[in-house]
């Protein structure tokens, strides 16, 4: 196999090192060869080189955990666990009326009586829930209940998952942490919803080039939006390559903002 380093033919990022050892000069009529040939099988087209480290992005987001454990560092999971669950207090909670009660009678310092309804965020519900269930008991939000489950199994494509809590899949996966006899059905419903909506996300993300996509993503929840963006990226990269823009040198996003900073009194 031949290896060739071409100076102009690869996209360069101004802020990072040049990836290929140089080769420009051309005195004998042929470009200089760089680096050794890679010993390999004859069917070289089947073995792509390892992907270049993606220094083009400054920030690698940690993805959501999905499944019974959340990812501690994932912003998506943090936002998801802020969503509220309906529940009720199993024992009276002294002095917490100001924090948890809505419209509870009396000012701060009062206790929440036993059995009163509460809306608590998921992170708090997970923390306070234990198998003896002394403190809190949780109920399913209505979107995971029987009525909505039949809607999802009928046709999942029409549901506006963004309105129904923008973290349908993540939140639903976390709900399985609480003991509930309906857990297997909930898990199955979430999976089937994802599978039915997959086709539409794939088609819309791989076909909408240079269009306003706000209508397409309006009804998707956050997980599906991330998938949509991945599909768009594949499409945009391909189109950009086909137009020939992939070989143009562009400013890296890492350094694009440098000139815009104002130097304050640093220089004395």
């Amino acid at each position, binding site marked *: 196999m031949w290896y060739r380093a071409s100076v102009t033919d690869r996209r360069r990022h101004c802020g990072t090192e040049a990836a290929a050892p140089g080769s420009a000069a051309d005195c004998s009529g042929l470009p200089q060869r760089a680096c050794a040939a890679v010993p390999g099988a004859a069917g070289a087209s089947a073995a792509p080189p390892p992907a270049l480290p993606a220094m083009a992005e400054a920030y690698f987001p940690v993805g959501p955990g999905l499944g019974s454990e959340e990812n501690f560092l994932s912003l998506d999971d943090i936002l998801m666990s802020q969503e509220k669950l309906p529940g009720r207090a199993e024992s009276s909670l002294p002095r917490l009326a100001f924090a948890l009660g809505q419209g509870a009678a009396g000012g701060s310092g009062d206790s929440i009586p036993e059995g009163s309804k509460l809306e608590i965020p998921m992170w708090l519900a997970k923390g306070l829930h234990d198998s003896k269930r002394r403190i809190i008991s949780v109920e399913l939000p209505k979107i995971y209940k029987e009525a909505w489950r039949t809607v999802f199994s009928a046709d999942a494509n029409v549901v506006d998952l963004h309105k129904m809590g923008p973290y349908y899949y993540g939140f639903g*996966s976390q709900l399985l942490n609480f003991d509930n006899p309906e857990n297997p059905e909930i898990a199955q419903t979430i999976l089937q919803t994802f599978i039915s909506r997959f086709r539409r996300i794939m088609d819309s993300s*791989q076909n909408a080039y240079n269009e306003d996509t706000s209508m397409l993503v309006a009804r998707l929840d956050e997980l599906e939006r991330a998938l949509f963006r*991945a599909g768009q990226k594949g499409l945009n990269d391909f189109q950009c390559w086909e137009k020939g823009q992939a070989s143009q040198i562009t400013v890296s996003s890492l350094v694009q903002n440098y000139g815009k900073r104002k130097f304050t009194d640093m220089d004395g």
Partner: protein
Amino acid sequence: MEPAEAEFLAEKELVTIVPSFSMDRVHLIGGDLGPFNPGLPVEVPVWLAVNLKQRQKCRLVPPAWMDVEKLEEIRDQERKEDTFTPMPSPYYMELTKLLLNYASDNIPKADEIRTLVKDTWDTRMAKLRLSADSFVRQQEAHAKLDNLTLMEINTIGTFLTQALDHMYKLRTNLQPAESSQSQDF
């Protein structure tokens, strides 16, 4: 992998040129090139062919499959079959783009060829999406697709692997959670 990387790999393919200069055989690490004699066709890799063409030292001969009738046949067969038909070259998309961009004067009916290749590409991508959808729908564990080219895999790859990751995680929800928790450091 980016499309530009797939194009880089495609440039190893051989193509015929008719040089207008002469040079002895050149011994490179990967193989030999040459000898070049004016007017005599010789096979070189695409990267060299494009470079020589840009310096106006050769004329490119289009590959045998880059012809309107052949491409029409390929396109029609692709539309008839449900599975993927073998393509004349595993890098047909990249070669089309390179040759038609740099050597369109040497290739007759370049615009029609571009349209035909694009049609074939669209058909194959639609088939790929259809089979990805049925793969997900039936929750299969393995799928085998013959005769796919690298560029097609690239375009849909990130999306598909992410979607399958999510589906896998949602599927592990179906199993009741193990009670033992382990920490990994």
